[in-house]
């Protein structure tokens, strides 16, 4: 699993990157909230939202193709769940290429697709302009429980380690001829997973030892608190009002 995409653009030095992490987190969240509550019929609003994403990406020097590419990954789920709707939903129909499609169904499908794409795009921008530890510090600053933040940090750190170990186990099994073809072979997958769990458990024991040896006594130490600048406040206020206006006024 390539994980380079996560940190690919986080060390660029742009105006957006330098914004306080809390501002970016709140902005992304508010953006998603506005998008999700906008009825799909307000097409112009969605165009503006997409424009905002593109503009922010440009300001942050993050290629739009990158953002769009990652956002499109979410479409398969849309297809799975809502694709059938235009064919099955009731009510008014329009005829496209000789097939009767439900208008209501089409709107639902379009709405779901647009919202999920925009939601992912916002998060991609957030993560690309904010190193993960800064993002966590921002969340902590916004009031998220310390234990949860500590857990997120540790989980993130060992995500790739465990995934790598899992891949190695699977390759080893494949090298011995394991190719899952039918359901009962899930049990073999289970044995690999059991092995992986034990490794993760023993890793936790060793990490715990390492933490204690360097003075850990129940709480991860924190860095100096983030400092909020006037510019950060202005940007946040501007963004929130703009988004609220679009949501309420644009039809």
């Amino acid at each position, binding site marked *: 699993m390539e994980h380079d995409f996560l940190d690919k653009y986080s060390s660029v030095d742009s105006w957006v990157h330098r914004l306080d992490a809390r501002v970016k987190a709140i902005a992304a969240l508010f953006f998603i909230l506005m998008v999700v509550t906008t009825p799909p019929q307000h097409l112009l609003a969605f165009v503006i939202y997409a424009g905002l994403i593109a503009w922010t990406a440009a300001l942050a020097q993050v290629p739009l193709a990158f953002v769009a590419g990652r956002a499109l990954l979410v479409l398969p789920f849309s297809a799975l769940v809502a694709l059938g709707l235009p064919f099955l939903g009731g009510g008014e129909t329009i005829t496209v290429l000789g097939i009767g499609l439900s208008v209501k169904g089409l709107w639902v499908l379009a709405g779901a697709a647009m919202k999920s794409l925009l939601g992912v795009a916002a998060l991609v921008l957030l993560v690309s302009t904010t190193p993960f530890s800064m993002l966590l510090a921002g969340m902590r600053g916004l009031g998220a429980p310390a234990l949860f933040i500590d857990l997120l940090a540790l989980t*993130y*750190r060992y995500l*790739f380690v465990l995934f790598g170990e899992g891949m190695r186990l699977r390759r080893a099994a494949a090298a011995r001829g394991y190719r899952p073809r039918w359901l009962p072979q899930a049990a073999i997958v289970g044995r690999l997973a059991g092995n992986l769990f034990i490794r993760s458990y023993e890793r936790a024991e060793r990490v715990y030892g390492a933490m204690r040896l360097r003075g850990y006594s129940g709480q991860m130490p924190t860095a100096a608190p983030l400092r909020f600048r006037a510019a950060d406040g202005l940007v946040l206020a501007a963004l929130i009002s703009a988004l609220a206006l679009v949501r309420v006024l644009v039809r």
Partner: protein
Amino acid sequence: MSTPSTAIDVSSLRYRYHDGTEALRGLSLRVEHGESVCLAGPNGAGKSTLLLCLAGLLKAEGGVRVGSGKGVGPDLRIPGPAAFGLVFQDPEDQLFCPTVGEDVAFGPRNEKLQEGEVARRVAESLSAVGLSGFETRSAHHLSGGEKRRAAIAAVLACRPAILALDEPWANLDARASRAVTGILDGFGGTLLVASQDLYHAAEVCERLVILDGGTIAADGRVKDLLADAALLEAHGLEFGARCIPCPHNSHSFAI
């Protein structure tokens, strides 16, 4: 307050794993302040177990005194980061923060130092291991050698009086190995290195303690013991030979 005359004092140490294996069978050892000791021995000899017992992570029977003997933590076994620092075999276990800077700062911050002092220690430790400027890098993006050095920096930031390392040269290429040797050479306190790599250990340590089957098989100056090939072989060790072309005669080699 008097400091004990020896840095480490172990007497009749016994440790048995929960599956029954006896890893340490009555081991006794004394290390003076400032000594640099290599603990060598075949796999299963008990080197790692001994280090873990010294660190207080394993509860053994017998006497263990590290540093001033005052422990910290709920069970008072851990000597404390300023007394004893241990670098594990797998640096992945010791780099548990999102960035290298946070990992190196972990120890100093737990000591409740001011942020300015913390930043100083971080810069100092990273520079000592040749990783200046790595503060914002994430651990999973580092190479094996860089991870090893980052782990050492994280332990050094606590300014331990005794530094112990478990197989510091394992899985490193020549350049990274040289870097580690340089770091250990520059360390001023008591050094304890568990390693099968006698070639590198000999450059750093004056004293060699050979462990086998949970007890000490030999204990003496590095130069003396390395000359005894039979002794080394008896305990599964090898002092690797190095071949370089002879500068005067291109057809022969010096060892």
